[in-house]
């Protein structure tokens, strides 16, 4: 058989499941024969990362500790800082819980069932990625605020959303809701329906199928999505800033608290509080890398 024929056979997706043809695409590229370009590119990347990421991180840490350890401790343990941290954690945990459930359901629905409007729904889920968080916050004010569509109804039932904790949580949920879905959808899509159909034919119920067949398949992607969602939820500023009303000790999250301190020329405290966020970010980064490594 000629070389050409062999290649053609290889190119065909023999199993018909699409997996083999994909594997071809992600093979590592051949090493370029010009090493100069390689080192120039590495140099540019490192320089960029240093200026954009490393340098600011160093500035945060140095400034936070600029007035000494005691000042740092005082800023971090300040009553309002602790309250802001608590609210950030509350909003993050709630958003992650809600979006995990929503993400699993929607990814399952869109990958395993075919119905009219499937594509539209998939695009709608991505809206928070393409919309400015400030607009998202504003939308909530216009919907749930005093002058909003639901304002009278909420007032009559004594429910406060805007300029209150529920608003902060809602905004966080909104901004982070595509993350889990985005991670799960391709994984579930690639799995196909065969294994689940096979299990169903043997008489397994929906929950058993999910627990024993679907879940083992998606668990790493799910964890990865949860981590990304957590990172984004903790750092959210725009939407939360619009809807919270900046009530210190009530609706202030950590990022908002940093801004307030900074605007009050309380630079050391601002950086000290920032360092909490940096620490959380580093923890998430480590978790993320662990998961990525495990996924392989």
């Amino acid at each position: 058989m000629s070389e050409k024929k062999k290649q053609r056979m290889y190119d065909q997706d023999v199993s018909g499941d699409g997996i083999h043809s994909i594997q071809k695409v992600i093979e590592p590229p051949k090493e370029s024969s010009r090493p100069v370009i390689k080192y120039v590119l590495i140099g540019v990347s490192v320089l960029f990362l240093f200026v954009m990421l490393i340098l600011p991180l160093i500035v945060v840490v140095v400034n936070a500790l600029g007035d000494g350890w005691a000042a740092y401790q005082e800023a971090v343990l300040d009553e309002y800082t602790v309250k802001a941290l608590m609210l950030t954690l509350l909003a993050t945990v709630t958003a992650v819980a809600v979006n995990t459930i929503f993400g699993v359901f929607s990814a399952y629905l869109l990958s395993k069932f075919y119905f009219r409007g499937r594509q539209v729904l998939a695009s709608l889920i991505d809206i928070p990625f393409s919309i400015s968080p400030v607009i998202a916050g504003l939308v909530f004010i216009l919907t749930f605020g005093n002058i909003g569509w639901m304002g009278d109804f909420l007032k009559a039932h004594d429910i406060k959303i805007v300029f209150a904790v529920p608003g902060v949580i809602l905004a966080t949920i909104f901004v982070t809701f595509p993350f889990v879905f985005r991670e799960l959808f391709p994984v579930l899509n690639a799995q196909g329906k065969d294994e689940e159909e096979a299990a169903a034919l043997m008489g397994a119920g929906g929950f058993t199928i999910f627990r024993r067949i679907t879940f083992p398949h998606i668990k790493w992607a799910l964890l990865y999505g949860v981590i990304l969602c957590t990172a984004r939820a903790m750092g959210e500023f725009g939407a939360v800033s619009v809807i919270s009303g900046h009530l210190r000790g009530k609706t202030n999250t950590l990022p908002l608290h940093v801004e307030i301190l900074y605007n009050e020329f309380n630079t050391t405290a601002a950086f000290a509080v920032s360092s909490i966020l940096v620490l959380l970010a580093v923890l998430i980064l480590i978790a993320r890398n662990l998961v990525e490594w495990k996924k392989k």
Partner: protein
Amino acid sequence: MEEKVIGETTMYVEMRHIMKTFDGFQASNDVSFGIERGCLAALLGPSGSGKTTILRMIAGLDKPDSGDILINEARVNDLPGSKRGIGFVFQNYALFRYMTVADNIAFGLEVQKKSKAEIKTRVEELLELISMQDLGKRYPHQLSGGQRQRVAFARALAPNPQLLLLDEPFAAIDAKVRRELRTWLREMIERVGVTSIFVTHDQEEAMEVADLVIVTNQGRVEQMGTPDDICMHPETEFVADFIDTARFEALRAVEGKKQ
């Protein structure tokens, strides 16, 4: 299973005037045939001829728009697939990739809440049947294509189905091993004595393995009969053409190897 008997029949599986469309595509057009108990039947046809749809409807994975499906003299149209007493081997085997070979085979029995001891005995029995006693702890991705097919076969047989359905059982297998596996599968099915239907687009495969061949084309049954019947006395132009083309291709493949 439902007890309702519809008419006299000596067939174990019977399709009566089955119609099925997918989004305006006529997948089954007045499909009727019967298969006797203990028979090994092949659904043969080109891709898109509706053979897999027929298999999936017998399994309960798809529902016909009209017509009756009978298994063991009872109408099963409204019975879920899991209650029809069938085993199904998927085209790509659909082995549970996060379970070991032994767990794959045990799954159907666990779902039926069989006792641990019973499951263990049955799994061992089946591993022996497919000559993979030592590979029970392996995962599907650690197996060759032929081994995977054997596991899929054992898994489908574990709950003692009365009817075994196989969707293109040899399609994902290397051409070299295919012939060997054909003989193996034929022997296994004979030994277990289970009524079986398999889908194929390869006429040679159908002729070699099956007792009864059902040729499908454009959602219709063109002809059914023994392999000899189909080869010697094709009833329609399509059957004559399909068998001949396939033969021609086989010849060409042989010549290609010589070069």
